[in-house]
């Protein structure tokens, strides 16, 4: 099997892929470098659609119309049903927690479970700190978390 991979693409994060294609002589196929131009377009399209949803969610939370859990649900590409499965609770309970009122009445233990799932701290959720998605700014978040702990603002590190 031959493979040559020298076409890094923005969207695949430079991940060289294997693809099969037609040989120039019209014969059978073999592995060639992946032509990711098409994939890039449609992949970007999907991410753009997601970005629109995320910024809408952020606005809703900042306007006090939804809870931070709603924002983190959208950022993690979930819907209430999926979030409920991850949390092991019913959908209607998730929906309740998505509202500011239901969110305010959340017990610490439940909040910590949400925080663990979303990889943020309980403090972040309570204060309504809206981080970007896990795969977007891991380093930045770690740096700021370390800074916050130094400052001794007291938020207990949740078991993320």
């Amino acid at each position, binding site marked *: 099997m031959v493979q040559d991979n020298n076409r890094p693409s923005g969207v695949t*994060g430079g991940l060289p892929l294997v693809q099969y294609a037609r040989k120039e002589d019209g014969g059978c196929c*073999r592995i060639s470098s992946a032509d990711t131009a098409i994939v890039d377009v449609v992949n970007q399209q999907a991410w753009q659609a997601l970005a629109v949803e995320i910024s809408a969610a952020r606005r809703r939370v900042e306007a006090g119309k939804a809870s931070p859990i709603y924002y983190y649900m959208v950022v993690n590409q979930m819907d209430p049903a999926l979030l409920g499965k991850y949390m092991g609770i019913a959908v209607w309970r998730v929906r309740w927690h998505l509202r500011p009122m239901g969110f305010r009445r959340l017990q610490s233990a439940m909040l910590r479970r949400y925080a663990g799932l979303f990889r943020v701290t309980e403090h972040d959720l309570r204060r309504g700190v809206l981080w970007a998605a896990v*795969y977007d700014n891991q380093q930045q978040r770690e740096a700021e978390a370390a800074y916050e702990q130094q400052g001794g603002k007291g938020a207990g590190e949740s078991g993320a």
Partner: protein
Amino acid sequence: MNSRVGRVQVNRELDFQHRQAAHCESGVAASLVSHIGIPLSEPMAFGIGGGLFFGYFPFIRLNGLPLVTYRVAVGRIIKRLTQNLGLGTWQRTFRHPAQAMAALDDLLAQGVPVGLQTGVFWLPYFPKAYRFHFNGHNLVVYGKRGDDYLISDPVFPGPVTCPAEDLQRARFAAGALAPKGRMYGLNPLAAKPDFRTGIKAGLQVVVRGMLQPFPLTGVRGIRFLARRLKRWPQRLGPAKAELHLGHVVRMQEEIGTGGGGFRFLYADFLREAGELLRHDPLAAVGRDLTVAGDRWRDFAVMAARICKGRPAAGDDYQALADGLEQCAALEEQFFRRLRTLLGTLP
């Protein structure tokens, strides 16, 4: 979520050869079969496993978009491959994550490389572009160093590592196709497999799948998609139609299809199988499938131009549908021919 790992402290790296593949499941299948002593290429694993398919199911939704598939259901390739070759397999699913991780560690300690079904979203070594909730990914764990698992992920050029906590999450990803910690592997080789019957069985299942009368799958499924796609702009409005179109192309060209919705991969299998059986017509017939593969590519390119908002002259949904009709016609012809060829195999 707790991240308790197995009682056994494993610090072991098995001798496992990583190979990059176009598709995760056939890649894992090929690696595992090769590991027990039968050298097998990815196209052969895909072909004997009867991986090629088409299905369009508008009533099943993924993130609100209709399900389009160019391959058989997750797990089916490995199952058929091992059945058709008469290889023994085992698999387990779990209720408790801690148990699942302990079982994995036990097997590694015994020196067994383990295949896992996982979600993609929680795997930290995946680039951002692929972090969607897709639970049909396959990989092989071949060792553990400290708290990191050593993973042969066929999509990647080299072996990767993954912290235990993330792997545990990926193994218990929720939602459609939830893996429930599924792990699997092959038993040690008992008897030498018969490739002739294996290839025949693999071909038969694909020919049947593509030519059967059910209207949503096979060649009829492609025609069905063409008819529906034509009306997307009127039915959904331009923005949503573009999203639907992008989704179809993503399923066809994105990570792990080998391009052209597996058509090129399958054509390579036909060549290799024909050479193995010394059957020239079979070795040559794959060329016709690459022609269909090229039509699929053209379809994807045109669709990408439309999604980008830069259609060239003559690009519209009608033209796309015509392209799909062409693919359907080519593939119908091709699989009919393959069916007659099947009777002539030694």
